[in-house]
């Protein structure tokens, strides 16, 4: 068999399709018929230096894929499968793998180090293969360089693969020692040094204890800093990558080294190759990220506590850091604005400058203004662009009081530059800067508006003109218009200075979407986004124009659906998504007030027909957008939505079955809620199908967990709509709710993400209970719910005891207490009086500062006093 394997593996890479297919089939059969032998053969192939490089490489790859997969449920299957194999066989395979690390073939070594890490990823958490780390490190110093390199790479992969708590500290110490020694300048082989630096990058997460030890930390930091001076550019870059990782993982340990690091990074930014300089800048961006987070937790109130104190590294380094960053802004690439993936030192420098502004606020302004004044009018476009970029970068962070005079002064200059500057680079950055001005310094909440009825016309005229410019500039102009409109979103129905230009703006944006080059620089997307925002901020005066916009967008959608019959491509689907998105915004806007809704409803039939056609396309994005739009339409239409149900139902069901694009599934679940509220009891004929699908979704381990809480809430929506008809689903829904409730009652030991998820799950469960109780209220069948009451009350009590509910859950939970009392009345009186929730929990909620919690609590109190007074 082993002889055959080589040939099959080679055939599987053959040019001849038939031969390849045959070989793949053979491999599949072999695996299915005898897995242990299959895996052993592959390991043998990989370990055998006599075999061709190609077959060994593929053997390693198949082996790797037999141990791990991307999809969570598949991954779990593979792990179980490996764990259940015969230990003797596994020992043999592992011995072959370790042997391969010394192979003369570089491919074999690099492949096997990944395979070893995958096996370790399965076995170490199960306390198996305890000798692995020891045997890797036993004689690392005496090994030939290639084996040393492969060993270090393997350690790096292992650290990436397993979580720190499954490797004991003794092994961590050994790994770090080996790795740091490998980085040391006494190591003469550059490949080994590079492997060591990269291994350290992955091992940093394991080094908590070592970073708490001053001597060990000093040693690691010294070696990392020294390594940034290596003559090899790859090693220097990798060393800076380690510094970036350390800046976020060990921010609080950096104080003694920050001066040295500043010197090192400043030198790299000034002199080193771009790939190294970018990492050096990233170090400071990362420090900004940390300090912004910490300061946000302080919440401006320095007495508040954060787990990590702020060391104000950015503030201290400010006067050196800012000039260094400003210098980088002059190193633009010629074509950076056309290339969407562009990333260079000027962009990184500006990004970091923006983060610094957010970290220190007002202090940055006097350090940047001289640079702007110096360069903004220079003949060289680089200087003008750099000055504009610097200005745009610091608009978020400093106080409006500090910025408003500057922005008011600069506004005219920017508008002129956007029209007249000969350089596209400068115009691009100018339009972007205008967008930032509107984003951060314009809005109904600000005291002194920078935009007044007096300058509004000029702004709109310039932006509309600029939309005819080259695509990248036009795209930024659309973005600026987006933020200009957004500033009026909270103005309500009051007239805004934008009102007189509404029609012109809409017309200009529609023209942009029809530009032949609109697909470049995501111009078309930006135009529709701006259009959406303009619609959102429309008011009573401009509403009639939004009503007129609806048929235009519908026609566009109709045209793409017609074109699709001829040819279908990605762009077509993207456009359909944008158009459905735009219609959704229009529906939501017009549906929110009675008079406009009345005018809009004339289009409802046609619009629904178009959405149904969109479902024929295969694009998940278009589906999602159409589904969201239908939800908005159902809400606007109300009970009349029933007439669309026969046709729409199959797509609703399809959406609920879409496990792969779980966003589509989640959105469909939300739309079921919309439809329930629109149709009320008329949803009943569809409920069997919907409930079946929802119950299937809940039992599936393939569906992304984030969809489960909304499914529970959806139970509540259905129950509220169909009332006592929910009876037949109680038998299925209640046990599911009950077991989910038991699982979610306790969060002990969970991380923040898990706690957040648990709370959203609790909220979903509680909303289900709420809907079910309210749905049955006043029905002769309320007593069917009595058997579930003790559990619901227990759940509430245990949530209260656990003390980790967020405000939303608290509000929903206390509401459920009221719903239970309201529906079950006096028969639940004694049960309610026994529960802690009806006393301490209710009391706490009644004195809550949160308006919504208090409101729910007062309702619950009322319902309970009714229930127990009879």
């Amino acid at each position: 068999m082993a002889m055959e394997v080589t040939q099959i593996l080679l055939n599987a890479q053959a040019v001849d399709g038939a031969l390849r297919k045959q070989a793949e089939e053979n491999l599949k059969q072999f695996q299915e018929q005898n897995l242990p032998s299959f895996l052993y053969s592959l390991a043998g192939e990989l370990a055998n230096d006599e075999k061709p490089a190609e077959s060994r490489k593929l053997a390693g790859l198949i082996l790797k894929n037999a141990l791990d997969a991307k999809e969570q449920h598949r991954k779990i299957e593979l792990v179980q499968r490996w764990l259940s194999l015969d230990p003797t066989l596994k020992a043999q395979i592992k011995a072959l793998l370790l042997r391969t690390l010394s192979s003369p073939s570089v491919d074999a070594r690099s492949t096997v180090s990944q395979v070893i890490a995958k096996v370790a990823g399965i076995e170490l958490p199960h306390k198996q293969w305890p000798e692995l780390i020891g045997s890797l490190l036993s004689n690392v110093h005496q090994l030939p360089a290639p084996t040393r390199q492969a060993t270090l790479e393997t350690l790096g992969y292992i650290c990436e693969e397993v979580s720190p708590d499954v490797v004991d500290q003794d092994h961590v110490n050994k790994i770090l020692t080996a790795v740091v020694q490998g980085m040391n300048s006494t190591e003469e082989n550059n490949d080994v040094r590079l492997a060591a630096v990269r291994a350290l990058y992955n091992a940093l997460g394991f080094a908590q204890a070592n970073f708490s030890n001053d001597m060990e930390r000093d040693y690691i930091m010294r070696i990392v800093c020294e390594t940034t001076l290596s003559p090899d550019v790859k090693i220097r870059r990798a060393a800076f990558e380690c510094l970036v990782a350390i800046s976020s993982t060990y921010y609080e340990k950096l104080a003694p080294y920050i001066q040295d690091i500043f010197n090192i990074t400043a030198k790299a930014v000034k002199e080193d190759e771009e790939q190294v300089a970018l990492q050096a800048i990233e170090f400071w961006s990362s420090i900004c990220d940390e300090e912004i987070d910490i300061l946000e937790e302080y919440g401006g109130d320095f007495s508040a506590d954060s787990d990590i104190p702020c060391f104000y590294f950015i503030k201290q380094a400010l006067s050196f850091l800012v000039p260094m960053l400003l210098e980088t802004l002059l190193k633009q690439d010629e074509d950076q604005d056309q290339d969407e993936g562009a990333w260079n030192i000027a962009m990184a420098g500006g990004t970091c400058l923006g983060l610094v502004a957010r970290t220190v606020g007002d202090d940055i302004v006097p350090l940047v203004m001289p640079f702007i004044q110096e360069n903004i009018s220079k003949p060289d476009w680089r200087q003008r662009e750099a000055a504009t970029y610097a200005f745009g970068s610091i608009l978020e962070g400093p106080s409006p009081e500090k910025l408003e005079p500057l922005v008011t002064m600069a506004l005219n200059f920017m508008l002129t530059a956007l029209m007249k500057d000969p350089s596209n680079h400068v115009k691009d950055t100018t339009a972007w800067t205008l967008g930032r001005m509107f984003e951060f310094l314009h809005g109904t909440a600000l005291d002194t508006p920078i935009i007044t009825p007096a300058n509004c016309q000029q702004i709109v005229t310039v932006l509309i003109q600029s939309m005819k410019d080259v695509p990248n500039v036009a795209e930024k102009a659309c973005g600026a218009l987006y933020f200009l409109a957004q500033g009026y979103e909270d103005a309500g129905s009051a007239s805004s200075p934008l009102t007189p230009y509404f029609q012109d703006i809409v017309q200009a944006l529609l023209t942009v979407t029809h530009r032949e080059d609109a697909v470049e620089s995501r111009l078309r997307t930006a135009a529709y986004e701006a259009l959406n925002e303009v619609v959102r901020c429309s008011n009573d005066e401009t509403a009639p124009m939004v009503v007129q916009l609806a048929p235009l967008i519908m026609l566009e959608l109709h045209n793409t659906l017609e074109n699709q019959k001829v040819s279908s491509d990605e762009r077509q689907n993207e456009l359909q998504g944008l158009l459905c998105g735009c219609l959704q915004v229009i529906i939501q806007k017009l549906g929110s007030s009675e008079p406009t809704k009345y005018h809009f409803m004339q289009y409802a039939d046609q619009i629904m027909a178009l959405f149904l056609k969109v479902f024929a396309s295969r694009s998940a994005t278009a589906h999602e957008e159409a589904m969201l739009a239908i939800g908005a339409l159902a809400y606007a239409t109300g009970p009349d939505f029933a007439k669309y149900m026969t046709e729409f139902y199959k797509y609703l069901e399809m959406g609920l079955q879409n496990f792969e694009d779980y966003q589509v599934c989640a959105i469909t679940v939300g739309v079921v809620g919309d439809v329930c509220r629109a149709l009320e009891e008329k949803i009943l004929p569809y409920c069997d199908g919907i409930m079946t699908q929802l119950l299937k979704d809940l039992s599936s381990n393939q569906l992304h967990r984030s969809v489960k809480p909304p499914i529970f809430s959806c139970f509540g929506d259905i129950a509220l709509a169909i009332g006592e008809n929910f009876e037949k689903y109680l038998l299925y829904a209640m046990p599911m709710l009950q077991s989910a409730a038991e699982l979610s009652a306790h969060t002990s030991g969970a991380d923040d993400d898990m706690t957040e998820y648990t709370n959203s799950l609790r909220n979903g469960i509680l909303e289900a209970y709420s809907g079910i109780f309210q749905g049955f209220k006043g029905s002769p069948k309320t007593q069917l719910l009595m058997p579930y009451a003790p559990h619901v009350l227990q759940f509430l009590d245990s949530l209260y005891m656990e003390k980790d509910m967020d405000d939303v859950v608290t509000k929903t939970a206390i509401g459920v207490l009221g719903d239970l009392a309201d529906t079950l009345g006096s028969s639940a009186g004694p049960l309610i009086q026994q529960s802690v929730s009806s006393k301490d929990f209710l009391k706490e909620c009644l004195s809550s500062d949160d308006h919504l919690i208090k409101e729910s609590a007062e309702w619950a109190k009322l319902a309970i006093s009714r229930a127990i007074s009879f």
Partner: protein
Amino acid sequence: MAPHDLRRPFKRPLISDQEKRRQQSLLRQAQNRRDAQNHARFLASTALSLEQPHELEPEPVSAPELHDELIPDSEAPESPKELDVVEASKLKGAEARKWFAKQLMHPEWMIDIPENLSQDWFVFARPSGKRCFVVSCNGTTISRLRNGSILHRFPSELPNGARRKDSSGPAQSYSILDCIFHEVDQTYYVIDMVCWRGYSLYDCAAEFRFFWLNSKLAETGACEPPSHYHKYRFSLVPVYCCDQSGLCAAYTGSVPYVKDGLLFYNKHAHYQTGITPLALVWKDENCSQYVMDTDSKGQVPNHQQVVLELQEGGKLCTSDDPPVVFGCLDGGFMHESELHSGCLVRFAIGEGGLVLVDGKLEKADLNYLGKANRARASADSFSKVMFQYSVRHSPLRIDDLLGSVNSAADESNKVCDIEMDG
């Protein structure tokens, strides 16, 4: 083991309008779900029937209320049969009048003393003035008289009672108070709370309603003196447990308003629209200017007058459900006087008086006076006729009331705080 891609989308911030659309949809759905829940929680139990069996006039034709009755609403179009308060608050004009006319709880007149008066009843001095229903919702406050016509439309500090930016909670949640508008000090005296911030209190016991009224009204600032956003002051009425000291306090205690009798509310009774024996009114000359009915000129007639409804077969009935029959007219007389079934007819009670056997009316000496005023909407109730009769013959005196609470129980002789710890 590749470090992360360090490109940051700074100059190209992806606005991600799609994400925004998704978030806004979720927000809308959450809001709609909340609305649906609130609707279910507060309103289902508030559904009030438009088809109340009878329109009643249980109170005396007292001077300040005379003009209430001058607005006939016979032109009101047919209203839907079942409406809840929120839907009703959208009604306009005549329909609204018709609906609101039926929403007040009306006390019977006290013709004998209920058992357990001191245990199960509250007592308070009824302010003299116009009985009305005050609804605050969507930034305005509207008071309506018993017949549904609007008394005032004004801004107030009641929840959502004025257009103000800082109001919390949904603007459409409504509050309904049962009040008496007291002309002299231009104050609404609140005698009951029917809905508060959208919570229905219809099916709550009086004990709870008074507790809620006491604890909630003051929170709003509605009891403050008038201001720009608050045109009329609202005021609470001191409510006592009906023991000896409570009864004395209600009867003799000084209050800022002119008294018009005493009201007795059963602690356990719900707010029941229409006439109810679980709320009672009692008067004597010390606590009311209007003990005896007056005629249209404000004079007390020599003989007691009653208004009865002429029904099939010439039967003369009170407005009660079931009606009490006072006598019968013969067909010839009806024809002669152009009377037909449904007419309201006014009689004087003659020397023969009213003869009761075991609390049941045996015989009534009625003298025909003529058709009742067109503005009258309905006949007198039995308890009203009997109370007026007893006032002229053997009135129920305060000492009788005091005697009954004294004998029943003297353990509790303090004004008790109406407090519940639900």
